[in-house]
């Protein structure tokens, strides 16, 4: 029933509408960012130059392209502020993704091994925080990590520390915030893969004499690799560009790249530089993005 030589009008409409929307509101904006990254700031509305004047005809077009330049990229390459920001973002993303994997795997595994009746409820419990605003959840951590906050109260009460430390405005706080917010993104794909695992494979390994840890290491872990990859990609890529978490929990000395873009845009009003930073960020993420798309394609082709 799915083979057809000509698509009906209904199908062309069903496909065309979302396609056109995405082209207009996802693809075209990217091209515009690219163009703006090649422009200069101007004290004007819009605050950049050159502006393409479609009515100016061919000479207008030539003038437009002549005014584009890579100056902004040169700035990025030379000013260490940006370099540090990129490096820091990738560092934090990589490290927190690792922590997420180490924390998320046991949770996903435990849910997958729980009695079937409980699993939907357990999954719901893991996902429920995700439905509340990220802002709220980070703000909750601001409450806890304050110098006079409950965490320090507990620590001083247990005599773990003598002097309540400052948790906020530090990289540690960022890690806590990131891991807390992205945990569902790691647990869900892991759980989806682990839940589909054929238990008889592990039983066969036990029957052949393998101890529990070996079964896990040689059978369960390799078979869950696609879930791990999905979780890693779903976390790493967006964490690199995070803004809210480092802004509310982190210090102002070394901003992450999301903060840098925000600052360039809203504080410095330098749209072209902000665009250039964004373009470089996308380029940095290209490799994991391609891996991610490849995995997503596999998922679709499966049908």
């Amino acid at each position: 029933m799915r083979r057809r030589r000509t698509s009906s009008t209904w199908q062309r409409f069903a496909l065309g509408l979302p396609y056109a929307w995405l082209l207009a509101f996802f693809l075209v904006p990217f091209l515009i960012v690219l163009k703006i990254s090649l422009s200069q700031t101007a004290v004007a509305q819009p605050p950049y130059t050159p502006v393409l004047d479609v009515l100016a005809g061919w000479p207008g077009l030539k003038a437009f392209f002549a005014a584009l330049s890579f100056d902004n990229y040169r700035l990025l390459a030379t000013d260490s502020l940006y370099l540090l920001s990129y490096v820091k973002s990738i560092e934090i993303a990589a490290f927190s993704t690792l922590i997420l994997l180490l924390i998320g795997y046991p949770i996903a595994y435990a849910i997958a091994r729980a009695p079937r009746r409980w699993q939907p409820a357990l999954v719901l419990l893991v996902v429920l925080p995700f439905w509340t605003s990220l802002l709220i959840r980070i703000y909750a951590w601001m409450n806890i990590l304050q110098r006079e906050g409950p965490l320090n109260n507990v620590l001083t009460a247990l005599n773990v520390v003598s002097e309540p430390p400052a948790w906020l405005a530090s990289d540690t706080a960022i890690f806590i915030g990131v891991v807390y917010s992205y945990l569902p993104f790691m647990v869900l794909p892991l759980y989806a893969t682990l839940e589909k695992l054929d238990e008889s494979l592990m039983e066969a390994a036990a029957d052949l004499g393998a101890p529990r840890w070996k079964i896990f290491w040689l059978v369960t872990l390799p078979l869950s690799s696609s879930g791990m990859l999905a979780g890693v990609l779903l976390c790493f890529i967006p964490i690199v560009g995070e803004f809210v978490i480092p802004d509310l929990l982190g210090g102002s000395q070394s901003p992450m790249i999301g903060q840098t873009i925000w600052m360039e845009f809203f504080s410095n009003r330098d749209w072209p530089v902000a665009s250039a930073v964004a373009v470089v960020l996308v380029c940095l993420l290209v490799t994991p993005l391609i891996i991610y798309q490849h995995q997503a394609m596999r998922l679709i082709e499966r049908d």
Partner: protein
Amino acid sequence: MRRLSGVNISALVLGMAFLYLPIAVLVIYSFNASRLVAVWGGWSTRWYAELLNDRPLIEAATVSLRLAVAAATVATILGTLAALALARFGRFRGRLPFAAMIYAPLVMPEVITGLSLLLLFVTIAVDRGFWTVAIAHTTTAMCFVTVIVQSRLSDLDISLEEAAADLGASPSRTFLAVTLPLIAPAIAAAWMLAFALSLDDLVIASFTTGPGTTTLPIRIYSEVRLGVKPEMNAVCTIMVAVVGVAVIIASGLAKLSAGRGEAAR
């Protein structure tokens, strides 16, 4: 009958505690009579009362709700169409780039999508405000809707639709009488997710909004970036309660319809 090992149980308990303690702390402190966190002043609802007087906050909440309903509805329609195309239209030309455009926004950092959409609106000289934010939210939400509905569609036995055709139903009748009822729970869940995403979004709204349109997250953010505020605790508790109740109701509904919708095999 599976039994959970001790290791697994402790993993679950620790995990859940980690996830819920901060929210619990937030809720508790929203009832703290004292303004200072270090001091517990007893139970009080004064911050909730003060909320009622906070006009800008209530206005922002109204804006956010209207925005969320609009964006969720349009996103659900577009996303369902896209899911149909991906799951049922075979290998049409342009399928790969289409799927790429659906999956990319799911992971793209929000500063990038926000920035790019703002630059689009500036380029076409559109006044930024309610509708630009609505368009932005619709664009990101629609991708989530597509993934959810498409997953449900591909789980649906295609012989059900073939049987409908075999019995004389044209493609549109098949869709309305067979496909739609069976994917309805997924569509509802997707609408709710789109609603929540729009309600919670800070970054994209900040980029694409205009003067006069302040969303709730933008308002909250401008308050909290200067430090913890007890009124904010109250707002957040309310939002958590609303979402919690909604999700529980939704999953209850989902369980009901799953009983009637699932496999007659």
